[in-house]
């Protein structure tokens, strides 16, 4: 399984890759494209090589911190329609505390560190680059 995918994310595949009878607690996080304003979908792009390296680093950190947990993720690229998942993270551990903590750690780090970008597609055909830092460049960001 690759960390970056242009196809819909399969929760079952993610689950299968980390669950085992020794791990009684599994926490999954799914981030899905939300219907803000007139958004009809989001086009995700990435610096693929760095995103893959960064994901490996983040998962490695989680592994080091919660040694009995197993965590994996998949980030979708390309056009993701409303309601579909752009990211899926699964953490399985012997107990639920570790599963929740590891899953949460990974999504927070992903949000901070992954070289991935979102271009929102609007109902009127325009697009907007999303700047989660909040420093939206008015007008200039809304092209075409």
């Amino acid at each position, binding site marked *: 399984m690759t960390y970056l995918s242009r196809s819909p994310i399969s929760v079952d595949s993610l689950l299968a890759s980390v669950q085992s009878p020794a791990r009684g607690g599994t926490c999954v996080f799914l981030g899905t494209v939300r219907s803000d304003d007139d958004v009809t979908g989001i086009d995700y792009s990435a*610096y693929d090589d*760095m995103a893959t390296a960064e994901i490996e680093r983040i998962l490695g950190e989680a592994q080091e911190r919660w040694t009995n947990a197993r965590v994996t993720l998949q980030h979708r690229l390309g056009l993701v329609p409303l309601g579909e998942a752009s990211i899926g993270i699964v953490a399985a551990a012997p107990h639920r505390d570790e599963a929740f903590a590891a899953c949460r750690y990974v999504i927070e780090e992903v*949000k901070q*560190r*992954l070289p*991935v*970008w979102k*271009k929102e597609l609007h109902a009127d055909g325009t697009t907007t680059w999303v700047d*989660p*830092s909040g420093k939206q460049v008015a007008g200039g960001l809304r092209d075409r």
Partner: protein
Amino acid sequence: MPNVTVRFFARYAELAGCDSTAVRVSGSAATVADVLARVRETIPGARDLPPRPLAAVNLRQVKLDARVNDGDEVALLPPLAGG
């Protein structure tokens, strides 16, 4: 005189009008900031990049005062929006 590859992504690629370019910077202690300055000279659209964009060298995020070496891949990254 390090030769580096500079890569642009997402909105920065649109501004620069290209995905990557080769840049030579002078001096034995060249930094990412020097690369950025050189890019602004050679690519007109790159003048619209913010003064201090996020940057990476060889797939790791770095500060603008990080050194660059011959053959490095320098990337200029718009605000990250993964997840």
